[in-house]
């Protein structure tokens, strides 16, 4: 069974002083994968500046916009229509997720191949005292441990907007467990990696028809690699396995690799950016 979504992303940038020249890169286009298929993209900006597609260093599609005329304010909007195929998140997991996988994840070959997603990064570094915050129980499968971790984080952090920001590190979250999806996801990545499981940060959209947390911004969740199974998505903000309400855009080591908007603006002074996201199911 499949159904269609329409996703609208809007951003407004205001600059204190006039800008002569700017380039922006948006990492907001839903990727094509086994469970989703992009049908159409419509991009608009208030300056009618040239836009085009490119890719980031990890191969995810980006939208590039360059301006060369003076401005102080610019609005962007992009509308994506896509088809999402519904799937059973449990799929083949129980068959292949076997005890010998705990040995496999410790092997050198495995560690070398998965190095990017086992490496500690700025946003997934645990303070020294917290490395054993969540230790896997090897009498149950990796998948079951990850599900437990997902729930543990969901209960540990209190969802609260306005407490953290894009540069918040885990030390702060652990000392004062309040935050948004990004913080839930960074902690999940950190603790899963601490148990030798390759884990990556995913940015995307969440269809909130079912009352999930996601506050009409871009959403974040994690994907963990289970040997013989593959990458499985966990949404610790909502204590969910990733399902057909999750629309993936990109993944990376942490938020830094996935930030939806990067800009190079030749201007002095402050600027203010606001984003909004709307996801609608069209059946």
């Amino acid at each position, binding site marked *: 069974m499949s159904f269609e979504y329409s996703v609208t992303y809007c951003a407004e940038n205001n600059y204190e002083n006039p800008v002569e020249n700017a380039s922006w*890169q948006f990492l907001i286009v839903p990727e094509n994968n086994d469970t989703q298929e992009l049908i159409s993209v419509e991009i608009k900006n208030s300056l009618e500046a040239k836009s085009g597609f*490119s*890719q*980031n*260093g*990890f191969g995810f599609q*980006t939208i590039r916009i360059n301006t060369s005329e003076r401005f102080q304010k610019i609005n962007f909007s992009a509308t994506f229509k896509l088809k999402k195929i519904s799937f059973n998140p449990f799929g083949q997991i129980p068959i292949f997720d076997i005890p010998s996988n705990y040995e496999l994840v410790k092997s*050198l070959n495995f560690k070398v*191949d998965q190095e*990017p997603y086992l490496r500690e990064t700025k946003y997934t570094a645990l303070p020294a005292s917290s490395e054993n915050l969540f230790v896997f129980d090897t009498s149950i499968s990796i998948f079951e441990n990850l599900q437990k971790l997902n729930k543990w984080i969901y209960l540990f952090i209190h969802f609260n907007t306005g407490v953290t920001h894009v540069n918040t590190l885990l030390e702060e979250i652990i000392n004062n467990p309040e935050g948004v999806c990004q913080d839930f996801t960074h902690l999940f990545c950190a603790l899963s990696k601490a148990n030798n499981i390759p884990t990556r940060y995913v940015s995307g959209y969440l269809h909130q028809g079912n009352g999930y947390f996601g506050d009409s911004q871009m959403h974040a969740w994690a994907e963990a690699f289970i040997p013989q199974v593959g990458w499985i998505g966990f949404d610790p903000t909502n204590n969910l396995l990733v399902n057909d309400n999750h629309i993936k855009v990109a993944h990376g080591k942490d938020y830094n690799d996935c930030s939806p908007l990067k800009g190079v603006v030749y201007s002095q002074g402050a600027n203010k950016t606001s984003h909004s996201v709307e996801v609608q199911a069209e059946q």
Partner: protein
Amino acid sequence: MNPDVKKPIFSSYINNTSLFDEVFNTNGAAKNVYQKLFELYGNHSIQDYVQLNNKAKSSFFNQGITFQVYDNKETQEKIFPFDLFPGIIAEDEWEIIERGAIQRSKALNLFLWDIYHDKKIIKDGIVPLDLISSSANYFHQMIGVDPPGGIYNHISGTDIIKHSDGNYYVLEDNIRCPSGVSYVICNRTALKRALFGVFNHYKTHSVTNYAENLLDILESVKPKGVDVPNCVVITPGMYNSAFYEHSYLAKAMGVELVEGRDLFVENDFVYMKTIRGPIKVDVIYRRVDDQFIDPLEFRADSSLGVPGLFAAYIKGNVCLANAPGTGVADDKAIYTYMPKIIKYYLDETPILNNVHTYHCSRPNELKYVLEHIHELVVKPVDEAGGYGISIGNRLSKSEIKVVQEEIKQNPRKYIAQPIMSLSVHPTYIDDSESFEQRHVDLRTFTLLGNKKEFVLKGGLSRVALKKGNLIVNSSQGGGSKDTWVLKK
């Protein structure tokens, strides 16, 4: 006539025979390759020499051949101190250096290809995974990317010393943005101008062919589908310490010198802004550090780069030399694996020796280093230009404690090596108005292209001008000499 006026050049030279003197044997006689030079110089007085040396120096100043030294408070513009008395290398000895430099460049290139593709050397347990995964210069964005022609380190600067045992040792392989080649060429020009009579008595290889070979190498790694590539040199700008060199190389190759703001990217192709409209750029010799080349992909605060350049690169529409992410192999901890890296990829024994190195990241070796700091050189693994180096036998007890603490705080950041006794070369010292022994090393320049390779026959002999000093980097107050490689 005042007898002092006729004071022969080397009359007050003190030949400390515990040091390896490149010119004089322990019995005081000049070595073979220097004999003719010695005879010719011998006819002159020290005053003649000073006059010539000053002429050469002023020619540097007049041409604006300067560099900048950074310290905590300010930057200063300096002339690179130059000494007219050249280093001379016989053909057979040079052959060893040349083969050794090519061997290292090729091995490093294969190593870089491997760690950005199959990572076999790590899986085979030769190079530890930690060394790669803890490196800030290992770019995940480069995994699986095939650089044009398969080349990462197009330009390498290999620092070589002659130890008191008479053998050559490599101190460092510089493959980020090694500089100094323009000084080699300027030194030669200045020397020929001042001493053409002496120079003409030797059959010396030219060094002015560097630029044409560099252009050849850059053109050999043009992107697919490009017929005649448009090459440019990108510089961080006129305040960069090596700006003279960037402008020199662009001029000598006959290509444009650009800054980031002169280029732009559209549809993943790179263009140069000109008064006649945009011109596509195919190969970029980048003298901007890779963290700064594209603010959309790497450091967002960089104003030196070109937004979108990296996407153009991974799409194969432009070639960057050296390739982004090459710096992972220009790490003093990787250096210590060079003999194994050469063996692994080329199945050869290293032609040039490595200096024995202790890794502070290994507990046993850390213990040794902490206990023997007074007889070791401690270096941070990721700093260039001679910054952060501590030489054990020059440190006071309290300074040793400071170094020990620093190492304990961050063992991965440090390696240590025995204090190598660099050879010495007679160098004119202004203060004593005479020649004195000063430690020297040699930076050689190797180019690697698509089925092409080149080693500049010559190099930058770098001199530590302070007595007894072992650090020869220009940023640490070193000077330089011309280096003659003799033809058979």
